[in-house]
């Protein structure tokens, strides 16, 4: 069985969970393994129907007040309770567990709780984990996975050794969400599982929204973003001048903000703002997943990078391979001439 660990907030599944569930269904068909979603939390029943609409016909829930806030200890125990139930369930019967019920692959998204939890479980069970997967396939009896390395600049294909279960987190954006056909929408069979006693060694004290939202990108139809390729704080001016010429806003990748070249509210990406402008310039930005998730829904993306293999070109509509210090001032000049 393939288990897909869902993640939700305010009674909604996260976008990455939709990607995960879609790919889990396709993989289940390919591998002829049943697929089940795992929903952990407190008061999660309302989430189940949506899983059916996404074509998931089996759901394991662990519903417990101890799961209302995420903690590695409680969530590890809960996920463990699910896999235990599968291997030792009361309905296992005298002949033991049918093969199709043994957890074969446990998957989560590579953001949020996935990378915080699955490595712990894999280490606990001494089973292989592959993080940031972009492809999973079986050849003969062996499972092969392709993962991102070097911040998505390269891929590494690996095979997994030993017995199942195997563990994987999937890279955001690697598996596009596809429409679920009407006839595939189901009413899922739900199996509630008890959490039992857990000793929780991490306690969430509070949550806070940081100042990232201070800059209103929402209204900007053009955003010009600069990355580490700018090399020095004084070169941020190149990006600012182009943004001014276009009447757009200035964005940045995380390292630019970390280095203090621009204030935090300019950061775009998973830990910054998510934007969807008409036009997005990525200048000297490599295209790490954490940046891509914040901007890949822009209507038109222009990438300027000296590395022809930079992953940013995969989401771009237009690209210029070359030195930003030579190219960007030329663009600014042309726009300014047009404006005049």
């Amino acid at each position: 069985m393939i288990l897909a660990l869902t993640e939700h907030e305010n009674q909604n599944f996260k976008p990455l969970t939709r990607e995960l569930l879609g790919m889990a269904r396709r993989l289940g068909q390919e591998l002829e393994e049943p697929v089940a979603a795992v929903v952990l939390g407190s008061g999660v029943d309302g989430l189940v129907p949506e899983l059916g609409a996404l074509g998931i016909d089996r759901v394991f829930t662990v519903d417990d007040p101890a799961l209302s806030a995420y903690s590695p200890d409680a969530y590890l125990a809960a996920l463990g309770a699910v896999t235990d139930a599968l291997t030792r369930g009361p309905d296992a019967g005298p002949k033991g567990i049918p093969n199709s019920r043994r957890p074969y692959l446990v998957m989560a998204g590579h953001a949020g709780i996935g990378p915080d939890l699955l490595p712990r479980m894999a280490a606990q069970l001494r089973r292989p984990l592959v993080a940031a997967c972009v492809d999973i396939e079986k050849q003969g009896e062996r499972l092969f996975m392709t993962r991102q390395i070097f911040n998505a600049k390269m891929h590494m294909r690996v095979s997994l050794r030993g017995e199942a279960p195997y563990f994987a987190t999937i890279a955001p954006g690697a598996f596009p969400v596809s429409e679920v056909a009407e006839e595939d929408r189901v009413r899922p069979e739900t199996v509630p599982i008890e959490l039992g006693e857990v000793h929780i060694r991490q306690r969430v004290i509070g949550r806070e929204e940081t100042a990232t939202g201070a800059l209103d990108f929402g209204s900007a139809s053009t955003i010009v973003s600069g990355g580490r390729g700018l090399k020095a704080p004084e070169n941020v001016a190149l990006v600012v001048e182009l943004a001014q010429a276009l009447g757009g806003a200035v964005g940045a990748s995380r390292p630019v903000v970390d280095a203090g070249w621009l204030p935090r509210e300019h950061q775009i990406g998973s830990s910054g703002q998510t934007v969807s402008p008409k036009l997005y310039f990525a200048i000297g930005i490599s295209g790490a997943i954490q940046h891509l998730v914040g901007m890949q829904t822009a209507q038109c993306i222009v990438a300027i990078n000296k590395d022809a293999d930079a992953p940013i070109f995969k989401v771009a509509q237009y690209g210029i391979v070359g030195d930003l210090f030579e190219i960007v001032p030329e663009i600014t000049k042309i726009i300014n001439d047009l404006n005049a």
Partner: protein
Amino acid sequence: MKIVTCMKLVPDPTARLLINESKSWIQETDLSFVLNEADSYALEEALALKEKHGGEVIALSVGQESTLRILRQGLATGADRAIFLSDKRFRGSDEFVTAQIIARAVDKDGGADLVLTGVQSDDLGTGTTGVMVAELLGWPHASVVISVDAAPEERRVRVRRELEGGITEEVELESPCVLTLQYGINQPRYPSLKGIMAAKKKELRKWDLEDLELGDDAVGVSGSMVEVAAVFVPERTGDVEIISGSPAEAAARLVEKLRKEAKAL
């Protein structure tokens, strides 16, 4: 407080990477290597905690001889001593095995109050090593940490961690624990001349496979559950149009396309 801070040697992220002949990794000859960026924030955090609470900071790394350089850098920056985990047989270890080596070493050194790692490495880059170290030590952990407040006498640590979309969370953990530290959370100090001189006299201990009492088949390629089949540059899947020409020509063509084709200007 006794703080172990992990340091990994990685290819310079600004270097152009090429794939090796056997397509199993990148070409390492002529490549420059640096301290993993995230680890520099972990080291700084460790030094700041020591300044506040006293105790000792131990820099730890798993790697080959070339890795000694970053441990010396750690000592020169202010770490009190270093543990160098090195053995030819460690080569090709996956994250789980590396975590196992680190956890063993922490144990052998008599434990610690805190083990710090970077949020992710710039080569393998999945941020799993630290979380696995925590599990193998049987300690709690917190990942993507942006600030640390310790109360050593109460065996508690309070951290702020970064969630998605600009939300942060404050968490209290029992110590000992493992924390993985996010990029850009502090200003890493540079080694001073005095620090560089002092580093020469500091203890740098080397442990190999036998010292860690791990089996031959528990490390390296044979001990890893994840086996590398191939490393490659991903194909460009989208339908990007690469605009060529001199900078001025390319710029003019781009603007033309943005106006006429994409109607984005």
